[in-house]
C-alpha cells in the first residue's frame, strides 16, 4: 500500500476549518517530532529549510496518535465538526 494513495482508498468530507493546529514555536524547537513518523496517514511534514511543521489535516484519520504521542503540548487537536472528516464506508 502506498500511503500517497490514501485519498483513493478512504473517503473524507473536507471542512474548511482545521481541526488540528500546530504551535510552530514549539515544533521548531522540538528535537524528535514523533508526529511526523507516527501519523498513520502521513499528515505531518517538517520543512528543514523553513523550520515549519505543516499538517495536512484534510487527510486525518482522526485516530489521535499525534495528540497522544506529542509530549510538548504543541498540538491543538480536536475532532472535526460533526459531519466532517474521515467517512469510513466499509472497514
Amino acid at each position, binding site marked *: 500500500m502506498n500511503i500517497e*494513495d490514501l485519498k483513493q482508498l478512504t473517503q473524507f468530507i473536507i471542512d474548511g476549518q482545521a481541526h488540528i493546529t500546530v504551535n510552530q514555536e514549539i515544533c521548531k524547537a522540538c528535537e524528535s517530532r514523533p508526529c511526523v513518523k507516527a501519523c498513520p496517514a502521513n499528515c505531518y511534514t517538517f520543512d528543514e529549510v523553513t523550520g515549519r511543521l505543516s499538517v495536512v489535516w484534510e487527510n486525518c484519520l482522526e485516530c489521535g496518535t499525534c495528540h497522544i504521542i506529542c509530549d510538548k503540548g504543541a498540538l491543538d487537536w480536536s475532532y472535526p465538526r*460533526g459531519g466532517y472528516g474521515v467517512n469510513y464506508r466499509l472497514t
Partner: protein
Amino acid sequence: MAALKLARAGASVCLLERGKQPGSKNMFGGLVHNCPVLNETFPDFWETAPVERHVYKKVLAFMTPESAVSLTFDNENFDRPPYNGVTVFRPVFDAWLAQQANKAGALLLCECTADDVIRKDGRINGVTVKGREGEIRGNIIIAADGALSFTAQKAGLRPKLQPGDMGVGIKLLLGLPEETINERFHLVRDQGADVSFLGAAGDIRGGGFLYTNHASVSIGLVMHLESLKLSEKSPYDVLNDFLQYPQVSRLIKGAVPLEYSAHLIPEGGYKAIPPLYTDGLLVAGDAAGLCYTNGINVEGINLALTSGALAAETAMEALKSKDYSAKSLSSYKKKLDASFVLKDMKNFKHSPGMMGMDRLYKVYPQIIAGIMENLYKTEGKPRPKLLKLIRREALEKVGLTKLLADGFKIGRSLL
C-alpha cells in the same frame, strides 16, 4: 447499545453521532465476540444483524521474516449458533445497531460532535455540540465517545492519555473473491478465519491480525504507541513490511485495496481504568478503557456492548429514583465488577506487564521458528533431542536469567 436499552425501557433518549451516519468514524479489527447482552437483546441476532462470517478457524502464528510457526484451531462447536464471534464492518454494523435504537424510540442526531460538558448545580447535565451547533441537556449523560473520550476528560474523570497506555491499530481492507478466500483459508459457507500474528511488527511491540469477511479480508497491525515512538518508524511502512512476509503475501495475493483506516486502542488494562461515573455522567466502552489483551484473547467490543447495557440499566434506576448523583450512579461500577467485564480485566491485570516484554515480539518468535527449523532440518549431522534443541535456542538467544524473568511474567499473566 446504551441508547437502545434505555429506549426499550421507555426513557427519553438522544443518541449523538459525530459522523454522517453511525459507524462512519469507527474502526476495529473485525470481530464481534459472542456476548450474552447481544443474544438477550436480539434473540435472532445471527439472522438479522449485518454480519459477514462467523469465526470457525482460529490461528496463532509466530512469525519471522523467513518462517512461520502456526497453531490452527478448527472447531465444529464454533460452527453453530450462538457463534463464538462474527466479523462485521463497523459502518454497516453500527448503523444497524443505531437503527434498532431509533426504532425503539431513541432520537438519533448525526453530524453532532460532543465538544464539552455542561454543568448545572454541581453536576453534569448536558453537552455542547459542534457541527449542528447547540446544546443537548439530559439528566444523565453516557459518554461512549471512544478511546480518546474528550467527554470523560472534560468531566474531570481522567487526565490526558499517555502513549504507554495506548496502542494504534491500522488496517487495510482488501477485496478478494469469496471463492478465493474459501480456498486459501479452507473455509466453506459463511465460515471465517481469525489469524493473530506475533512477530509481525519488527522491533515494535505489537501484533498483526487478519479477519475474513465475505469477499474481503481485514488485515492490519496493532502497535504500542510508546514503542512505535521509540522505533521512529511509520505505521504504514511497518504494515507494508508485514504484508510482504511470504506467509502473509500469499494469503492476500491479487487482492484489491478497498479502504485504509486507523484507530487508537486503550492498552493500559485494569490499572488504567479511570473512575467510571460522576454526578450526572457514566462512561462506557473504550472511553472507560474497557479493553484488554492477554496475548491470546483480544477483547473490546464485547466489553463495550456489555458496559453500555449496564450503564443503561444504572441510568434507568437513577431516572426512576430521580437521583442522578455520583452516589446513585455508583451501582454501575458494582454491576461491572460483578460482570465478566471487570472480572476479566482484573484477572488479566498483569497482562500489560507481559505484553511490555520486547522479547515477546521478535526474539521468542525467532526461538520458536529456530526450534522448528532444527527439528525438521536434515543435513547428515547427528540430531539432538528436543529438550537439548530448545535449551540451545532459548539460552543462546535470551539467557537463563531473562528467560526465567520472562517466564515469571508470562506465568503471572496467564496461569
